[in-house]
């Protein structure tokens, strides 16, 4: 048996026995590439995801809401950071990943290419988008790659308040004035379908799913998670007194699940292809922040070099 086969066997054994793969362990190239793609996309989503909500920090309607929102968006920066760090263990640098994002080669979750038009969108994003994200993320805490799994444990722990604060915003609005209630319904109307699309294409047409499931990077299929999300969310919408914008939505006694209408995948593909309402702005904003920060990063690096040189010359003089 060649050494490669030996290593591959060990890798397969680890996967089969639910042991984690760690950064320095041997792994097939394709596994490494899949992880880098998925983790960096995930990190990019967190970072780009700061923008639609960041859009309302300065306009939050109370100081309490402002604190909560700022803390939440800050958490997203933290989550992006944990995830970039996890990806870096696979031998790619953060700069390389950011380059890929800035030049449009890397993808991020399309949901963040929709605009946040009213304050109710802060509620809808927390409730629906974070709700969907949690559904996707909880299984990742058990994924086969150790650093990713550990980052996700931290993310999920911190994320738990995000959805609750969103739902609370929706609750306050739906119990508020007529205008507030309309605002909440309008937000649900705009965010419902994009949230369902967050689970990705139907299983039949998902190109990466099968291998990822086998490697235990992914643990449930897109459609399974989407169904779970619908089942969880519909009763919550009823509690809010809001109407889910899907005429086909109904409880199916036989399956014990909600049936829902067909998803307009052409819209999804448009947004993924870069033609969503905010694709350009999101990337432009990110690139601008990065470019405007270049002189600052350089200054700090230069100062660190200088101080290190001073310290070493002092030490050698002593």
């Amino acid at each position: 048996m060649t050494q490669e086969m030996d290593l591959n066997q060990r890798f397969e054994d680890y996967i089969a026995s639910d042991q984690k793969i760690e950064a320095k362990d041997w792994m097939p190239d394709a596994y490494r590439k899949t992880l880098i793609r998925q983790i960096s996309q995930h990190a990019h989503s967190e970072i780009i995801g700061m923008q639609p909500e960041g859009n309302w920090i300065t306009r939050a309607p109370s100081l309490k809401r402002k604190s909560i929102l700022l803390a939440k968006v800050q958490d997203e920066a933290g989550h992006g950071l944990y995830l970039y760090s996890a990806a870096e263990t696979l031998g790619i640098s953060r700069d390389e990943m950011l380059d890929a994002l800035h030049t449009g080669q890397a993808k991020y979750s399309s949901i963040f290419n929709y605009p946040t038009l009213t304050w109710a969108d802060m509620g809808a994003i927390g409730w629906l988008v974070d709700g969907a994200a949690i559904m996707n993320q909880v299984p990742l805490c058990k994924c086969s790659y150790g650093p990713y799994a550990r980052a996700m444990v931290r993310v999920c722990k911190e994320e738990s308040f995000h959805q609750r604060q969103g739902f609370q915003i929706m609750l306050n609005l739906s119990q508020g004035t007529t205008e507030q209630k309309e605002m909440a319904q309008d937000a649900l109307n705009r965010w419902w379908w994009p949230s369902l699309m967050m689970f990705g294409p139907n299983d039949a047409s998902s190109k990466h799913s099968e291998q990822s499931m086998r490697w235990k990077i992914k643990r449930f299929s897109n459609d399974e998670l989407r169904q779970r999300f619908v089942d969880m969310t519909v009763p919550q919408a009823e509690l809010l007194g809001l109407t889910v914008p899907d005429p086909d939505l109904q409880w199916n006694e036989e399956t014990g699940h909600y049936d829902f209408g067909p998803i307009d995948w052409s819209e999804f593909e448009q947004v993924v292809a870069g033609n969503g309402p905010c694709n350009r702005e999101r990337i432009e904003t990110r690139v601008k922040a990065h470019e405007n920060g270049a002189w600052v990063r350089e200054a700090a690096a230069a100062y660190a070099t200088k101080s290190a040189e001073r310290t070493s010359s002092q030490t050698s003089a002593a």
Partner: protein
Amino acid sequence: MSAPKAEWPLWEVFVRSRQGLSHKHVGSLHAADATMAISNARDVYTRRQEGTSIWVVKAEDITASSPSDKDVLFDPANDKVYRHPTFYDLPDEVKNM
């Protein structure tokens, strides 16, 4: 002066979650210098009062054992069962040992 590096170095962060416990690896981050690394670690990894003390170590300064040596390094401890208390059968009358 040497040209500044493109990217700030990577630091590994260890946090003591409370007095009496040892520092535990929590993740990593980028910082230009050690002071900034501590500061960033505080903001990134202890936003929810997770720590009472922080260590930061430049990732490049860590020497790690190689996974290919795993068998050689760790398997030999496998048959030293006499290092474990359960190896020793004592009469039931002996308490608290």
